[in-house]
């Protein structure tokens, strides 16, 4: 399997160093982050749904060494933290550090100040400049491909940004996600649908005391199409799965 043939050695080493530093300090931040979410913000995740999600994520990681991409709906800037909390436990993550998902946050939001850059570095992030130079975006995709091929999991938001309608928009699928999947043979996608009971629209931060619901579903999207059309087709299969999970969420309310 290719480990990002387009990624220069220097970039690969930099990612591995970041991984090492992050792992070294992980007992600290893997413990403090959920405590901050639970007791600082008062957030909770439905216990039963969380147990199912944690079990399923562990099963999916354990059953195959094929690349695993996590794709989620996107409503707040803290979704990736809450998702990490909702599908895993600090103990589980310490035992299997590859299960801690990498993220691709928007550079403008998360890499603008020195302390945010430190957090981004520790929290397994590869900042992405959305709408930036195409070669730079391609380089970020190469980094993600490299990480996936090494058995790391990566969390991406296939709608490309927080949903302005607060609903999953199938046609907003970012083709880059499909490109990632089609370029990695056997790549599996674990769709994660996360929503707080008070999330009626997109926002920066979930409300204090928010209670989240979570659901996961494994898919292996494939396309008979070629090139860009195949990438777009795969990306839309992923957003369609998330939309289906969203319908189930609202049907159950």
């Amino acid at each position, binding site marked *: 399997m290719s480990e990002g043939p387009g990624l220069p050695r220097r970039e690969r080493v930099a990612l591995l160093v970041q991984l090492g530093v992050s792992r070294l300090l992980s007992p600290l931040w893997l413990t403090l982050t959920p405590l901050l979410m639970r007791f600082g913000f008062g957030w909770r995740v439905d216990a039963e749904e969380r147990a199912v999600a944690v079990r399923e994520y562990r099963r999916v990681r354990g059953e195959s060494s094929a690349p695993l991409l996590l794709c989620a709906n996107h409503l707040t800037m803290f979704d990736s933290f809450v998702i990490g909390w909702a599908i895993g436990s600090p103990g589980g993550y310490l035992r299997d550090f590859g299960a801690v998902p990498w993220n691709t946050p928007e550079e403008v939001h998360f890499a603008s100040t020195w302390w945010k850059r430190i957090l981004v570095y520790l929290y397994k992030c590869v900042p992405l400049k959305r*709408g930036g130079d*195409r070669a730079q975006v*391609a380089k970020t995709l190469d980094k993600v491909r490299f990480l996936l091929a090494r058995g790391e999991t990566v969390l991406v938001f296939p709608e490309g940004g927080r949903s302005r309608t607060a609903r999953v928009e199938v046609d907003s699928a970012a083709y880059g996600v499909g490109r990632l999947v089609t370029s990695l043979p056997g790549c599996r996608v674990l769709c994660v649908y996360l929503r707080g009971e008070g999330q009626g629209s997109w926002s920066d931060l979930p409300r204090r005391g928010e209670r989240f619901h979570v659901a996961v579903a494994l898919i292996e999207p494939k396309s008979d199409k070629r*090139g860009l059309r195949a*990438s*777009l087709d795969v990306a839309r299969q992923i957003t369609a799965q998330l939309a289906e999970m969203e319908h189930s969420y609202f049907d159950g309310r």
Partner: protein
Amino acid sequence: MNAKEIQDRVLKILTPYVKDEKALASAGPGTNILEDLKVNSARLVDVVLAFEDEFDIEIADEDVDSVNTIGDCVTLIAQKVT
């Protein structure tokens, strides 16, 4: 097909996606599609698919990485149609 003809057809395809119509009126080979014309980056793939249909060509994923300006589009399409 010469570069001018390709550019005219490229601009026609881009028109519905452009948010800065003033920039479109003075667009040339050096005009950046995302920064100058304010085309949404998520829609860039739709633009490229429209190029495929318009010129009856196939554009690979990797080719999209080199598309930043109108001139890049013209060069890419010219390579594919010949």
